[in-house]
């Protein structure tokens, strides 16, 4: 039953949406599918944590965590699109809604995969389904962004496939690459092939996550994609890619290759932070800035994996908060672009005065993302710092703090100008903010309060269990 509701129903609905002649009916279908998916995900909190439907599909704590992120974000985006699509009546929404529904199913499949080959397939499918979404506006720039995204991601994914094959070679004695079998018999894997495989898998799934130096597609894709698509990509899709990277880490840690793989994680993490710092300062386009911000946060996630121990918990906590905060900012930004008709930071002034609801949520989202207390990202960044101190990695700490403060400076300028500055043309009567486009902001802000400020016991427990998969506390 869960399998049907989570995996097959979105696909069936996508078929329905593709077959539908009118645009008007697609939005209710999208919204109701999102609600059903969300309720099915919520119902999973009741059952046991580890579920195995069959050899290929199953759940563990990490799957639950990522699935919840996907489902909540998708629901918020579906509500948002109910308002957003009203604006764009000129273009048929068939491809947009159809691909979104398929993407929901594919992302769910990523969280459920218990076979490394199936995991690869699911990740590749999410890439292909998101390409038409980025190309929604079909302008020269969006075609360029889509092409770069497709080419770089496909290249990364091809290397990921090679990595999966290397993993199978290293697991020759097992004759399978089911995650359970590999983890249970990690000691019998051939270490040299496993190392090769881990590097290729990291490059492949790291490309999908947008880690530097494989991040080139990210600012372009986030810059050109419609805002709700950006929200899904930066929150849910990166979550899926991180899950894949986490699985690679799981295999390496079980095979006692922690000392080999941790420096790679740390290097990728610090490099991503550095690249983000360089490009966030002086960035003129708000969406592109969000792309670099995503590079930064993905860097923090793998840095946490590399430091190990308490940092793994912090990393997962960070993933949850970053996903919802990015969703909130992207959706708020969508409202701003509609109001100001530009994505340039210099064109958006005094959002709090002209579009008060959106302005407030934008500031909230930006405060969360920058790591202001009392929000979740402040704690996770602090915990990662603590883990780095505990292991005495002072060079890492130096760069971590340097890049974070540069990035903080870059954000501060943007928040002050965009939200609080004086509007250029204050006397122009502002159109009223659409309820459907503000409601998802309220939902995501509430979720952020409960994932970051008052963390409920079950969520705390879930993150504990997920980090225990890597032996983190």
């Amino acid at each position: 039953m869960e399998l049907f509701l989570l995996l097959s129903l979105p696909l069936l609905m996508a078929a329905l949406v593709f077959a539908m002649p009118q645009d008007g009916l697609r939005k209710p279908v999208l919204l109701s599918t999102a609600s059903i998916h969300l309720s099915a995900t919520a119902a999973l909190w009741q059952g046991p944590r580890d579920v195995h439907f069959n050899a290929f599909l199953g759940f563990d704590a990490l799957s639950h965590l990522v699935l919840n992120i996907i489902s909540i974000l998708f629901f918020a985006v579906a509500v948002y699109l109910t308002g957003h699509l009203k604006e764009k009546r000129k273009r048929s929404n068939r491809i947009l809604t159809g691909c979104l529904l398929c993407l929901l199913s594919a992302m769910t499949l990523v969280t459920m995969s218990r076979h490394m080959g199936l995991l690869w397939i699911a990740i590749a499918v999410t890439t292909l389904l998101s390409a038409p979404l980025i190309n929604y506006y079909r302008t020269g720039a969006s075609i360029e962004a889509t092409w770069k995204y497709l080419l770089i991601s496909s290249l990364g994914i091809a290397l990921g496939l090679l990595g999966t094959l290397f993993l199978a070679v290293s697991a020759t004695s097992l004759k399978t690459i089911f995650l359970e079998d590999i983890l249970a018999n990690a000691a019998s894997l051939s270490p040299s092939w496993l190392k090769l495989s881990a590097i290729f898998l990291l490059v492949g799934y790291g490309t999908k996550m947008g880690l530097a130096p494989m991040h080139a597609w990210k600012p372009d894709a986030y810059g050109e994609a419609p805002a709700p698509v950006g929200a899904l990509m930066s929150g849910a899709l990166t979550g899926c890619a991180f899950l894949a990277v986490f699985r690679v880490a799981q295999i390496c840690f079980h095979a006692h290759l922690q000392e080999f793989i941790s420096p790679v994680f740390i290097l990728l993490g610090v490099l991503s932070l550095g690249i983000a710092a360089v490009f966030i300062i002086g960035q003129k386009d708000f969406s592109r800035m969000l792309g670099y911000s995503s590079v930064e946060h993905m860097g923090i996630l793998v840095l946490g994996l590399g430091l190990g121990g308490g940092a793994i918990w912090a990393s997962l906590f960070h993933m949850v908060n970053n996903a919802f905060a990015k969703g909130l900012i992207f959706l708020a930004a969508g409202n701003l672009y509609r109001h100001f008709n530009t994505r340039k930071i210099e064109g958006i002034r005094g959002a709090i005065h002209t579009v008060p609801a959106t302005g407030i949520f934008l500031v909230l989202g930006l405060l969360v993302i920058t790591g202001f207390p009392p929000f979740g990202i402040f704690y996770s960044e602090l915990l990662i710092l603590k883990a780095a101190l505990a292991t005495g990695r002072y060079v890492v700490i130096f760069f971590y703090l340097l890049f974070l403060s540069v990035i903080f400076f870059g954000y501060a300028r943007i928040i002050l100008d965009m939200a609080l500055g004086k509007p250029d043309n204050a006397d122009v009567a502002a159109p009223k903010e659409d309820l459907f486009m503000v409601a998802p902001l309220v939902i995501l802000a509430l979720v952020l309060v409960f994932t970051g400020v008052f963390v409920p016991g079950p969520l705390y427990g879930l993150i504990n269990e997920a980090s225990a998969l890597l032996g983190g506390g």
Partner: protein
Amino acid sequence: MWLELALIAIVFLGIVILGNSRLATTIQLFALQSFILSATPLLVHPGPHAVIMAIATVLLKVILMPSLLFWAIRHVSIRREDQPLVGYGKTLLLGGFLTAVAFLISSRLDLPVREASNLLVPSAFSIIMIGFLLLVSRLKAITQVIGYLVMENGIFLFALLLLEKTPLLVEMGILLDIFVGTLVMGIIINHINQEFGSANTANLTSLRD
């Protein structure tokens, strides 16, 4: 014996693709390479599994993908790659060099599986590197896609090592995935043609920091 011959032909075709400038010929050469490739599962492990793989490869890589690529360039007037990023002479030299590197690497690798032929791994690696070279050295969108597909052909060759152990379902998924990837790329190439009047990715340089 037949397997070695097929592998040599596949690597040879890869190098010919590198030196070719006509888009239509490049697609045909890729189809020919995939056709020879489709016979390799039968030569490595004859059996029902290999037969299904061979049929699927012929259907997808020899018939559907090339026709799709021809469809994508049906309105393109310039059917040659006149100004590649790196010249033809240089790419050919590099291709030969990479093939040598592939053989060198493979001789150092210690395989825990029994290989059907000791040419299998080196030719897989050379094809992967040739595809990669094609992808990064050309500006026409169609040649870049062919580069990606040639890379995938190399990965397919490497996967032959594991033919008995991979579930058929997963293999079919991978093949289908690559096909859908080509489909999406073909559609985007079509958009590039409509927007810019040519499928030259040199036009795609407006987004930068």
